[in-house]
């Protein structure tokens, strides 16, 4: 394989988005090159999911621009959005599996949409389901799956189409250590195949060990990017931001009245 040329596959420029009284994304700038693996970390409510949602253009910025491949948020239309979405694989934080479709059908649907041949669909789905350890559940409906199993189906669906860029929102939140490692291995392999990966997670310690680029989001702003982050440091920052939100007027005594006989 020839050495890959470095292109920017996704870029966010001066993005702002206001979401009601309590939250806004402010002046977000970030670029992802093809083949890059980026962790997006930040405390609960920092805006990770919102930022990803903008990237797959389920929501539009108030100002600024998002560019994904040839698609530009300010120019994209109803007609071009499906093309954009087919470049992107998305693992949703809440999975979004279709309830009345089996595991197989859920994944196959995402491939049918792009007009993939049935024989190829069967082959791909089999392989990916086997990889995430759910091939034996291919004919089950999502409601009969455990939380972690649903999450793995969501991941399988996102990677089935060999997207150019994968947006994974907290893809290991319901997984045990081993399943997490398997999923990360899968993501790394897909990444090695040329897919850019942007993975949102709250697990700063896990992320730390891989030496990949880490973007730290806090209160709707990018607090750090690219520089290595040290766990202790981020811990402090998180504590700060989390604590500042939480009203501290509560004393232990207040909660002490939970007591009962």
């Amino acid at each position, binding site marked *: 394989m020839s050495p890959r040329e470095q292109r920017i596959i996704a870029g966010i420029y001066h993005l702002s988005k206001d979401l009601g009284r309590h939250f806004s994304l402010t002046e977000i700038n970030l670029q992802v090159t093809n083949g890059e693996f980026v962790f997006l970390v930040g405390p609960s409510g920092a805006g990770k999911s919102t930022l990803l949602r903008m990237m*797959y253009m*389920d929501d539009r910025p108030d100002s600024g621009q998002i560019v994904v491949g040839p698609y530009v948020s300010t120019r994209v*239309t*109803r007609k071009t*959005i*499906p*093309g*954009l*979405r*087919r470049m*992107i694989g*998305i693992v*949703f934080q809440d999975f*979004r*599996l*279709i*309830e*009345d*479709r089996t595991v197989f*059908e859920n994944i196959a*649907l*995402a491939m*049918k*949409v*792009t*007009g993939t*041949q049935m024989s190829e669909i069967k082959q791909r789905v089999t392989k990916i389901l086997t990889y995430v350890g759910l091939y034996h559940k291919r004919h089950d409906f999502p409601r009969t799956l455990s939380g972690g199993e649903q999450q793995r189906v969501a991941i399988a*669906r996102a990677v089935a*189409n060999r997207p150019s860029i994968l947006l994974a929102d907290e893809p290991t939140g319901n997984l045990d250590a081993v399943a997490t490692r398997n999923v990360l291995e899968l993501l790394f392999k897909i990444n090695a195949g040329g897919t850019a990966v942007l993975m949102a997670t709250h697990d700063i310690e896990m992320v730390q060990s891989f030496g990949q680029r880490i973007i730290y989001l806090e209160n709707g702003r990018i607090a750090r990017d690219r520089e290595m982050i040290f766990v202790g440091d981020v811990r402090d920052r998180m504590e700060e931001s989390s604590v500042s939100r939480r009203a501290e007027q509560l004393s232990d005594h207040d909660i002490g009245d939970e007591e009962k006989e």
Partner: protein
Amino acid sequence: MNLRTARYMIDEMMINLGRRKGANAIAVIIMGLSLLILIVFLMVTLNLASLIDKTSEEMRLFVYLEDGLEREVTQKIQLKLMGLRGIDEVSFISKDEALTEFRETLGEESDLLDELVENPLPDAFRVKPKRGYITSEFLASIAAETEKWEGVEEVRFGKKWFERGERLAKGIYIIDLALGLIIFLSVIFVIYNTVRLTVLQRRTTIDVMKLVGATNAFIRIPFILEGALQGIAASLLAIVLLTAIYTFSSRYLPGLVFMRRDALAGFVVFCAILGALGSFSAMRRFLKL
């Protein structure tokens, strides 16, 4: 759209139909029963119209002749009558025939005519107007014109009764139209919204399809096909029930008219379109960018 995409769309529709049998059945039954009401109303209207038509077709104009006319004059009058615009048939009724007919009309009371010393009835022509010309204005104009002719004593067509009947028929038509409009709108509303509810229930499916990059056509067409199928199933249900009602009713009202085949076919097509449109417009909300 290539063949494979078309196949996937049909797949989608089949899966949807299969997975939600209960909900689909209820939707089809709701729609079918609503349509039944519409189509029964149409049949009642059809029968009313044919009844009114038949009644008004029996309308005749009587041209009474002066006593003791020459044959030629009588024949000339007949020819002139037949030459008039809007006249279908002209037949001669002699005074004796007229008395016999009158006797029949009177029925039980006809013995009253036994007392007559001589037949007081004149010879006459019975004139049958053509179908489209049976209005009180036209009949009055003919009457006015022919009354002036030589040898014609009087022209009558039961003006008072005819006008009253005409008014009644008009009233019935207006009310029928008003009712029809209400029923029609109600049924459209019910069907449209029933289809809409079945689409709304699959909101998350639609959302997910959008997010994995399905084109609007890919999402929409299976739903539209499904709506059309539901419409067709519902209309067939309505037609089956209508046939049962017709069979039952015509035992008691032998003259009952059934809907024409082509009208029924049109009805099925109409319902298919209605179902498809219901799906289509329900999805417009979700398929916005």
